């Protein structure tokens, strides 16, 4: 379905058009427009409560949008369960709090979805899981349970778990915010490697160094709107927007 024709059909990987989202009467997203090309790396930043997480959670339907259109890999996101599951198969997600399944080993965490969603045979799923665990540099932890790993290790497993589904797009929702400082770089290193291999990535993060190094574009959000959208060098040095400057002075100021 989506997997099949997406490679053929051109167009952007993700396109958000006039996106609106309400929580009750609170307007979390206001008329958001964003287009992400295949292979592009986007870093989304902004103060807390600005709608960054809400926006990327709309892309794989963890939140339901109330207005506008979302097109992922050429398919418009609608209420059809098959359509939603189809899109989720192609869009990997990494969460702030890892959300590994605590009752399964690291290896089982990585094998589960490929086996039951992609219907891969067990042997194939295991080979692939081990390969991705190697890639995130923790092959030796495969038989442990998530609770036995450090935060940084858990987050790398979470990245491997998402990659095992062989998604075309990866969403990162503040992947390093819950980590102790010394573990942040091991996760960012994995993300940099992934970026260098051409993965389409949308990352909500406050790691401005990562943004400078990896992002094709930085998107700055405030109060549910996209305020500014620019390549990193321009964003960090030449932004004239007052809200952007205030935010940057806060995150870079100390």
């Amino acid at each position, binding site marked *: 379905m989506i997997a099949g024709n997406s490679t053929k059909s051109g167009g952007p990987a993700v396109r958000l058009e006039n996106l609106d989202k309400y929580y009750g009467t609170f307007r979390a997203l206001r008329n958001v427009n964003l287009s992400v090309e295949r292979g592009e790396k986007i870093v989304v930043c902004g103060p807390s409560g600005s709608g960054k997480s809400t926006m990327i959670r709309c892309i*794989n*339907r*963890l939140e339901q949008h109330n207005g506008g259109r979302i097109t992922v890999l050429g398919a418009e996101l609608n209420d059809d*369960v098959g359509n939603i*599951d*189809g899109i*989720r*198969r192609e*869009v*990997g*997600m990494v*969460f702030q*709090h890892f*959300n*590994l*399944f*605590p*009752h*399964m080993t690291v290896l089982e965490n990585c094998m*589960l*979805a490929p086996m*039951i*969603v992609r219907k891969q045979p067990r042997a194939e799923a295991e080979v692939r899981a081990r390969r991705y665990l190697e890639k995130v540099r923790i092959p030796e932890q495969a038989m442990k*349970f998530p*609770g*036995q790993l450090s935060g940084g290790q858990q987050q790398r497993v*979470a990245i491997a*778990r*998402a990659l095992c*589904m062989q998604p075309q797009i990866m969403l990162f929702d503040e992947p390093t915010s819950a980590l102790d400082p010394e573990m942040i770089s091991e996760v960012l290193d994995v993300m940099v490697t992934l970026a260098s291999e051409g993965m389409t990535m949308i990352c909500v993060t406050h790691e401005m160094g990562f943004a400078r190094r990896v992002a094709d574009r930085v998107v700055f959000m405030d109060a549910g709107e996209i305020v500014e959208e620019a390549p990193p060098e321009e964003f960090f040095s030449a932004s004239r927007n007052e809200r952007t400057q205030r935010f940057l002075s806060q995150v870079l100021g100390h």
Partner: protein
Amino acid sequence: MEMVVVAPPAPGRLEDLKRRFFATPLQALLSLISLAIMVFVVWKLLNWAVFSAVFTTSGGPEACQAAAGACWSVIAARWRIILFGLYPFEEQWRSALACVVVVVMTVLSCIPAFWTGRRIALVWGAGAALYYVLMKGGVLGLAYVGEEAWGGLALTLFIFVTTCLIGFPLAICLALLRRSELPWISRTTGLVIDGVRSLPLISILFTFAIVLPFALPQWLQGDKLYRVILGSALFFSAYQAEIVRGGMQGVPAGQEEAAMALGMSYWQRIGLIVLPQAMRNALPATINQFVISFKETSLVVIVGFFEILASGNAAYGTGEWRFAYVEVYAFIAFIYFIFVFSLSRYGAFLERRMAVGER
């Protein structure tokens, strides 16, 4: 890295005893008095139950009654009534075998190696069929015995196991329905659960056994026994549903989100991610509910079934053993204890086993 563990200096046994029980003169006095009471009670009990007790039926009830201790002869004389109730005497080996089947089936399904859909289904399917054929007969040259003649331990086990077997899946359904995003489904389910929970079990059993036949057409009624089991399963499921729901609330929302993000369907998320973790949270309360249900099977006596407690009544209630009711109840208490205690120990085993995944 190797951790160096330095144990605190261990006090000797005697030192320890002294410190705990004889630190001050008053404490020493209290300790001695308590010890004396304990010795006295244990001695009295042992004397009654063992040293002065009569174990054989040779002397008959009279000699037994004259003895100073317990009269266990009543058990030797009447154990068949206690265990099998009114089941025909020559056929009671079938009832005994049926008990064994239920126990084996339960033990097998408690072993983690049997926790695959096919194996559990096989164990329970074969077990239930075997039990039914053994008890009811009418085929394979076994004489026919109607449900009204089933009794004793075999009936207690049957009611308990079928109640759980029907009630548990029903409880999970109710818990899922109550979690539904559609308000009319969750509210209706909530109403049903709270409704059932606000009724006493006795009234539900009574309704299913006596009142339902007036409301249902003949072909839908089934035997009274199965209606009673259905009623008790409904009661069980209403309580268990809330336990399961509580367990689900303990599973972080991120777990289901992660499963969603991986493209898993609703049933995959529920079956593989949410329920396994929810059941782990709900385990202590679940074992508690099983224990309660096991003991509540004794209530079926009010609709005319001779489960083990009622059979015990019958065992001493007629004629010459009338004086020996304490011994009969002690015996029944012992049987209850064996089942309930193994249930609790199994629960503890499960908790330890599941703890492997944490930390």
